[in-house]
């Protein structure tokens, strides 16, 4: 899978979950950089991403995920 394509797809999900249509998806994007990214919206975002790609993250993978770049790596490895 193409990272750029995933970023475009994530933009759609993030824009909706965090109610920020203009959000820019970069590898180092994390909760500190988005106002409405908190515990609840984080879990909503995760479950949206899981259903979009028909994948399931493991709890330890979620704990290790420090930014969007880590998440893209995981999506790629799960879809491979």
């Amino acid at each position, binding site marked *: 899978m193409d990272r750029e394509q995933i970023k475009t797809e994530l933009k759609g999900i993030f824009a909706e979950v965090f109610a920020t249509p203009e959000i820019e998806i970069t590898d180092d994007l994390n909760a500190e950089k988005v106002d409405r990214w908190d515990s609840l919206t984080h879990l909503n975002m995760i479950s949206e991403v899981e259903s979009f790609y028909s994948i399931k993250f493991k*709890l330890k993978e979620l704990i290790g995920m420090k930014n969007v770049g880590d998440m893209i790596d995981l999506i790629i490895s799960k879809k491979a």
Partner: protein
Amino acid sequence: MDFRELIATNIHNNLDALCCTISGEPYTYNDLNQFLEIHCQSFDNISNSRIGIIIRNDFNTYAAIISSILNGVTFVPINPNYPEQRITDIIKASEINTCYDSFNSFRFEDVNLLNGNEKNEIWRLKTIDYSRFCYILFTSGTTGKPKGVPISYSNINAFLIGFQNLGYNITSEDRFLQMFELTFDLSVVSYIAPLMYGASFHTLDTSMVKPLALYDALDSQKITIALMVPSAIDMLMPYAEDIELPHLRLTQFCGEALKKRQVELWNNCIPNTQIDNVYGPTEATIYCTRYTIPQNNGILHHNGIVCIGKAMSETVLEISVEGELCLGGGQVSPGYLHATDEQKSKFYLKNNIHFYYSGDNASIDNNLFYCHGRIDDQVKIQGFRVELAELEFACNSIFPTLENTAIAVDGNNGTELHLFVKTHYNENTQSKLQHNIKQLLPWYMVPHKIHWVDNFPLNVNGKIDKNKLKQQVSN
């Protein structure tokens, strides 16, 4: 038993032992000892023996609280993210003129910041009168001002005697979870109890979102004893199959009604470990009843709400003629700070025992107690007490001419607050209300949604029909 003596002895005898990890960073009893050596004199010099502690997620904040206790001072935890008006109300009501801030950045008129000494001094446990307040916590009040609940040294000592009598066989090897904000009294047992046994406590990594940070602490810190709010189970449940916590031997749930469904889920995740439901309001010091979930037989419950069991050793329980649960004994607070007559009437003396009306409806069956919800409009949001009247009062102070009413409903992520305002929707009104509410109330009291209505539905008595509003929201 004197809990302060036990803690002081453990500090002196276990200097090299692990005391806590804060966001993953380890600290020994010697680190605590050094903080005490540097600060003991300054604590001694506080004129009215009261200190505001600005809560930061760092070791020095915990060390300051523990030093306050060992020096016999009264501490008031202050969340610096609270709205300014609330911080002002808390400082004025508790007559604080000294604060400790590990960031050294808190500024407030006529309040000095506590500093350490250049020179380390040998500290000694200070002998004090146990009727003195150990801490004052502020909870939601119906008058629009936060309500101060003082807990005396004697109250907390009674709680810890009760705790010891719960038979948990705690040793210095135990590792306690500390997942609570420090303005919440469940944090007090999470950091004080381990120190009585020379054990350690472990906080969550605040750089992670809550459920992940919780699981990460339970797992990587090898927690053996965890006190949690029941909603923590709901947060972890989407990942139930990944949960593996071989070190956890005891889970206690407190702060909200525990549901049978939640216990069953948790029991499946960590089979063959002890699960206790503990119950009690801030006014009766942390918790004062306990029910142990049986391993084989069915879980006792009433309408799906798990039994709260029996009183702990220093507490007596009775149910008033109206069906309200009353808590009596050594754990019960002396009474609210600057109490109004209505607030004073929440406490009474019977056969020389000091009692508190809990506000919870209850019943007793086979010597075991069951809670059936509130007699008033108090609700819990993620374990925090919220008086709906306080939200209504805040809305009224912003728009005095607009009638409003607040309700709480069960949402997807726990209890949600909804505010109904009687006027036409207008973007300016909405943003002014949203903005100003955040200036007046802590985050957990901010409504999930504001509804604009032409009229309120009324019941047969001509009062606002809150049940109809709840149905509207649920649909």
